[in-house]
């Protein structure tokens, strides 16, 4: 057997463990609120087209999960992004399927509920992150 070879540990990957950067959190919060507001407007105005399609896609892919990640403190780094996307798709699919199974199909009501809960959760988390981002500057 040859002599032991000393090899250093791999580098600590900050993004992996999710050290949140408040500026990114604030940006994502504001973007999420904009998506909620935009989709509410587009639904009330009942306009179709590519813009509504894109905004709806952003909502179902990101917003509810992002709100959840913010609420439980998992919104930092790539892990936060993973939790946000995973949770958003899951929340959307799970709630819409439950509506289908329960025979209570109210898609706009579901959107209103998710938008309200997400909005409140994000608005709750936004001020401390905003202050921290200002301090960082």
């Amino acid at each position, binding site marked *: 057997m040859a002599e032991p070879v000393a*090899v250093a540990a791999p580098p600590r990957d900050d993004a992996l463990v999710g050290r949140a950067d408040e500026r990114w959190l604030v940006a994502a919060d504001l973007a999420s609120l904009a998506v909620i507001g935009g989709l509410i407007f587009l639904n009330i105005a009942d306009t179709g087209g590519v813009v509504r399609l894109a905004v709806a*896609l952003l909502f179902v892919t990101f917003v509810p999960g992002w709100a959840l990640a913010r609420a439980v403190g998992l919104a930092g780094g790539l*892990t936060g992004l993973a939790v946000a*996307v*995973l949770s958003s798709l899951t929340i959307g699919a799970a709630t819409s399927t439950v*509506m289908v199974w329960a025979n209570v199909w109210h898609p706009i009501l579901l959107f209103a509920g998710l938008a309200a809960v997400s909005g409140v959760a994000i608005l709750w988390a936004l001020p401390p992150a905003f202050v921290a981002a200002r301090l960082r500057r």
Partner: protein
Amino acid sequence: MIGHRPAAETAAAPSARVVAPAERRLGVLGRFAVADALLPVAAVLWLVAVRQTDIGKINDFGLVPALPPTFFAALAVLIVSFITLLSQERPSTVRLALHLIALVTALQAVVPLLFPLPQYGYVFKHFGVVEYINLHGSVDDKIDIYQNWPGFFAFAAWFDDLAGQATPVPYAAWAPVYFDILAVLAINISLRALAIPWRARWIALFVFVIGNWVGQDYFAPQAFAFVLSQWVLACLLTLFRAAPAPWIGRLEEFVTNFARGVYVKTRPLVTPELTRRQRVAALLAIFVTFAVITFSHQLSPYMVIVAAGVLAVPGLLRPRWIVAVLIVIAGSYLITRYGFLKTHGDLILSFNPFKNVENPDSSPNTGVFGKIVTGYAARALSLFIWVLALIGAFRRTRAGTSSLVPLGLFFAPFGIIFGQEYGGEAIYRVFLFSLPWAAALAGVALAPRLAWTWWASARVGISIAVMTVLFLQAYFGLAQVNYTRPDEVAASNYFFEHARPGSVLILAAPNYPERGSEIYNHFVVTSGAYDPKLVPNPEFTHRVLGADDLGTIENVLRSYAPHGYFAITTGMKIYAHEYDLLPDGSLDNLDQAMAASKRWKLFYRNGDAVIYELVATAPPK
């Protein structure tokens, strides 16, 4: 705030430390890079290429003959640009990610930009279920398999409502772009957790995109479930990865020493330590997501269970009871579907591994020459990636880093072929679920261990170029078959608007936009996932069909319903030609025979489709 705890892990390759993961500083582009000029050039070339593409030139070899030289030039510039980034010491994540998104777009946005409708006739069945849910607000599990696994369809119906769409048709063709980007994002996180060095990781993501020839990323439950599965695995690997059991540590050390010939000590890898609240939230998210996978697609949950099991047995995933919970969730749902499975169990379970790996779509031994070339391109691409993966596993092990997890995840999906067939799709699922890990190891094989060299540029560039060429043929080789013609959809719509409810539609051959209506259940829905077809039934293949077959066709129809229709389309003729199932002109001959028969009446005809209605009330003599 999230803390850290060490977990025993064999060492990362020294190369992993030579170039630090510099892309950490997201959004900081830094100074000008050559790629900043090359990427826009590639984008412009690609846009020009799409405008120049003439889909009239599609033939037995698929879309490739129709693509202009600018398309290949665009891909070549993109690959060169990507390599210039890899050669840098500290490229930005934004630039690398833009190249990956450009690759996905260059390959997957071609179809929605070139063709007026989503490709694959069978995708219209999915539209039918989504529209059914939007119409009824519920599902009926007696109708078909899709209504028994409604997760994806309910989600799509909800999305349609939010997006102001009456049907998924306008956006469904873009599904591969969406699903592929979400998938590579998740896979990137998994590869980080596996301590794949940054160059190898980005090469791996490229390999995943150009290796994914199986076309399982269209608007379908399996694509949705695959993305969710990758996110579940990413969360498990990132948040619940643990030190391996002592016996596996010794085994790893033995293998590593065997490959390297020197003694290597295990050393810690940083994994996150969660607070109790975060841990409960993450576990809940994983379990609920897994439940969504379970009621969205029949095969995918078992792929996740197998992968999680591979991690749990050696203790790399803790607590191990996570796998038990996954099994309970999947098993419980399967029990609730007992009534359906009692009559359709063959769709899910099949314990014949030889039969389960069969799939005529990818078989290189059948069909016309172009189809055979496509089949071999797919096999060559798979083999290329698998060989690279084995080389990568050897290199990684030799460098002192464990390959146990990626190898285990790579081989685990193959276990599924002993239990499931699912209409020939099982082999596709096996390849797809093994691909991220095969790509990871392929990335390790191609990336240099130390500094970037000209040899590394050549090795990576040539390998990616070869794989891209194989991908283009493997993925687009059946474009002629997969192309959905507007006239065929018009015929299908006419059928649903005017046909007699309770009747059956018999197809001359596969490749028809079937069941694409919210009222598809008003007609006979057979036990399988498709409408009944003559071809490829051996009784109706490899000969010219004509008047002598009309009696048999009528009997087939009457075995499903007393009244019905029979459809022949251009897509069916091309399918029969491409798979060499009928002599050319055979279905035209059948069309003429039916037109001349008094037992059949013309119901609808346009340039690409004809539908006949059975008008005879008494069975043929």
